[in-house]
């Protein structure tokens, strides 16, 4: 079918890539179509902070011209978007904050560089919780993002814009970041695939830091196959990031074919308790049955310290972020308060006015748990509990290949519903946080609906088990069609 199709947005990234390679699709056509959806749907959902229409179209034209060239990257001419936490040279990087509202980075994040080198075209920067702090995309200075399945609901966070853009078929893929579940949870709430790799698998250089020992870059797509394609390009050692691991990157796409038969899957006893919505529980159990029917072996495993993962996270992450965000002082970049009386006033007002309430809360929590007299009881204690939690996973992975369970305790919730009690919001991450604390890879895959809202199945693996996770997710997607369901508004 030659170029003039109007439903290109329905294609997966992999299909788009095939179409461009074969000449059936032009990058210009594809980019133009998606850009139209960015300005209509994207706008309604408030999924974007910046749109780079002109550069995208120019890049698309160039990509089409280079068709004959032998040296084309795997993502040649393919449109994607980046979470606004990744530095993009020449294009605003706001981190969803007033503090960086007009900040234009002089350099590209490694992730951005690698995807661009592979030929990808950036259509824009997606909306997110401010500085990645949130689970509902309601803390953004640029307003909340709406869930394409129901615009009164949150798409989850902090990569809410990325998840909404992919779920609404505005783009086939979006980068995201995950510190406590910020890729996986929005993926679950929007019926998309979201993968957070092993800590150190993908470079953090150029990814504005929230909690340095927990942050990882990943992607949100509709299929595991697409995620495999992108992760293969993003992953790998980067000498500019001391925490980057020099570990060979397997061919994730080739590895997708690994069968489910014989795969040992752990079910966590502590997952299926009162906190989990019964419909979500049911969809997850059904998904597990599907896996079992294809030869996977289900075993019960124990993560006895699961309940402590959220409080641990809410000591460690704020501590690290309180320090990481000290650089935002109005002096060299970013928001600067007008007419400061003195240096103290410059700092206090630039930061007081530049940061939103949740960010300030986390900075203060972090400052508190690191402060004299409290360090041992909170920060040090949390780091010890982190060790306990990691040990739980180590023991579990001695018994099983993958741990499977719900990604989120409930389906998408109403915008404004959970903003009063910070703890209620924090508990959204109960199933995802453990993987961040232990540095493990995790993926969320759509596994059904609770009413009309998507439910996600989470798979967590041992360090560097992305291949296995992607394969399991892919095989599951061969047997189900949840990933092909789309929100009514997004036909």
């Amino acid at each position, binding site marked *: 079918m030659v170029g003039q199709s109007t439903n290109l947005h329905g294609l997966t990234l992999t299909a788009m890539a095939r179409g461009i390679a074969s000449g059936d699709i032009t990058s210009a056509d594809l980019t133009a179509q998606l850009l139209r959806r960015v300005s209509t749907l994207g706008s309604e959902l408030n999924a974007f902070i910046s749109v780079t229409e002109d550069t995208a179209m120019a890049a698309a034209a160039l990509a089409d011209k280079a068709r004959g060239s032998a040296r084309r990257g795997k993502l040649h001419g393919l449109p994607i978007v980046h979470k606004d936490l990744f530095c993009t040279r020449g294009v605003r990087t706001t*981190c969803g904050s007033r503090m960086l509202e007009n900040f234009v*980075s002089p350099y590209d994040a490694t992730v951005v560089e690698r995807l661009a080198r592979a030929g990808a075209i950036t259509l824009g920067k997606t909306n997110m919780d401010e500085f990645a702090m949130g689970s509902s995309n309601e803390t953004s200075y640029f307003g909340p993002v709406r869930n394409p399945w129901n615009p009164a609901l949150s798409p989850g966070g902090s990569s809410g814009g990325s998840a909404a853009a992919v779920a609404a078929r505005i783009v086939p893929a979006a980068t995201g970041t995950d510190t406590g579940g910020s890729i996986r949870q929005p993926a679950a709430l929007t019926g998309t695939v979201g993968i957070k790799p092993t800590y150190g698998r993908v470079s953090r250089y150029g990814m504005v830091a929230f909690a340095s020992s927990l942050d990882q870059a990943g992607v949100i797509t509709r299929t595991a196959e697409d995620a495999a394609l992108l992760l293969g390009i993003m992953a790998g050692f980067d000498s500019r990031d001391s925490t980057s691991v020099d570990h060979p990157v397997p061919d994730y796409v080739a590895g997708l074919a690994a069968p489910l038969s014989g795969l040992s899957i752990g079910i966590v006893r502590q997952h299926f308790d009162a906190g989990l919505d019964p419909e979500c529980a049911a969809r997850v159990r059904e998904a597990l049955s599907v896996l079992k029917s294809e030869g996977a072996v289900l075993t019960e495993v124990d993560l006895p310290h699961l309940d402590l993962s959220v409080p641990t996270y809410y000591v460690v992450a704020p501590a*690290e972020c309180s320090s990481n965000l000290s650089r935002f002082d109005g002096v060299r970049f970013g928001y600067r308060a007008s007419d400061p009386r003195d240096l103290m006033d410059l700092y206090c007002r630039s930061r007081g006015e530049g940061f939103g309430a949740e960010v300030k809360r986390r900075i203060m929590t972090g400052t508190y748990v690191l402060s004299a007299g409290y360090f041992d009881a909170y920060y040090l204690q949390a780091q010890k509990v982190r060790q306990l939690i990691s040990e739980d996973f180590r023991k579990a992975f001695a018994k099983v290949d993958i741990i499977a369970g719900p990604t989120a305790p409930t389906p998408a919730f109403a915008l404004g519903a959970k903003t009063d009690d910070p703890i209620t919001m924090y508990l959204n991450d109960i199933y995802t946080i453990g993987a961040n604390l232990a540095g493990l890879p995790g993926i969320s895959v759509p596994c059904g609906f609770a009413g009309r809202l998507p439910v996600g199945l989470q798979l967590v693996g041992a360090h560097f088990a992305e291949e296995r996770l992607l394969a399991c997710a892919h095989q599951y997607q061969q047997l189900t069609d949840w990933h092909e369901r789309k929100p009514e508004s997004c036909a």
Partner: protein
Amino acid sequence: MKAGWEVVIGLEIHCQLATRSKIFSGASTAYGATPNVQACLVDLGYPGVLPVLNGEAVRMACLFGLAVNATIATRSVFARKNYFYPDLPKGYQISQYELPIVANGEMMIRGEDGTEKRIGITRAHLEEDAGKSIHEGLGQYTGVDLNRAGTPLLEIVSEPDMRSAAQAVTYLRKIHSIVRYLGISDGNMQEGSFRCDANVSVRPAGQKALGTRTELKNLNSFRFIDKAINFEIARQIGLIEDGGQVVQETRLYDAERDETRPMRSKEEANDYRYFPDPDLLPVEIAPAYVQKLRESLPELPDAKKTRLQSQYGLRPEDAEILIGSRELADYFESLAGTTAAPAPLAANWVIGELSAALNRDNLDIGHGKIGAAELAGLLNRISDRSISGKIAKEVFEAMWAGEGSADQIIRKKGLIQITDSAAIEAIVRAVMDAHPTQIADYRSGKDKLFGFFVGQVMKQSGGRANPEQVNEILKKRLSDAR
């Protein structure tokens, strides 16, 4: 110091390591660049950037540790020291807290009474330097230059083992000498690559408990350190004797007024909220690496001094001066090894004429006008008695002015010494004949006139008569005449 009192001094040295690039980024560390041209994104604490550790800084820190007999940590950790100040772009300094790279070292110094005293070195750790704040010349603003931000520092902390300003200065000079010997720092105090803070407290002699200490900052020469500490000692003693109490505070030394005064900006106690830096991983140092470094250690000042004394027969005072810098000692050894003149003569020339010329022209030994081989040529002529020591000084000046080698100058100026006894005899006889009055006076007991006769003979010979022979012959002839 007043009788009945004792002072306790501990020193903290921030020594800039002479790496080419910064400790956590690839920006240059060269001194003196225009503001902010050597501050890259990592140094500026831009969003998203990350630190990567310079291996040379680690090597230099380990070398220091070995030179002071310290333990090199097999595993050390970087920690963030959190506080806000304009010259600290990230709002935290990457430093080391609980697990420094070097710990438990020592330095032996000679006390005022000549005895050896051990000064403990608690720790030495790596950290990044902050930028510079300029408070003058920008109206109602302070200007921030971050060129220096990220330069590697080795913070060397001593035990509070010093008991006088003099001991403190001696310790400092030794550390200063060592870091230069190791080639890990240029130790330039004016440029800020060797900075010292002193912690000073006093207590009644014999008391075990420590008094309240103050921290003295802005001490950028050995002389100022001595004066500042002595001022502070007197101030604290005076305060206590008047019934007051020493306040724990940071004080700046004002060189113009020769006094210390409290620093204004650091009043509130800072809670640095140290925690391990999550962007950096623990530094592991293998014993094999340390062993190789140990083997590569250059000869250190103390060992060199001992060896120079024994190998070259030098006096301790002379050896002490020669080890002042590695380059000076190397020059001396090169000279002593090349010249036929005895080593002590070589030492005298290096310590005397050569150093005077270098000081006069404000040059360091590396940029002097006369190389060791050339100077050896000059000393050889003294040694073979071609010229006298006095003439040699003339030749030295001419060499320094670039007029040629010793031999060329001696030949050109006809400065060969007269050593022919007959010739000197003739001059002596002529002088004696010309001054009968003085001869008579000398005979009648005015021994001082001997010098007059020597002077006359030297004058007649154009300064070239060999002084020892002149003395010998004059003595004989004058006593004959008696």
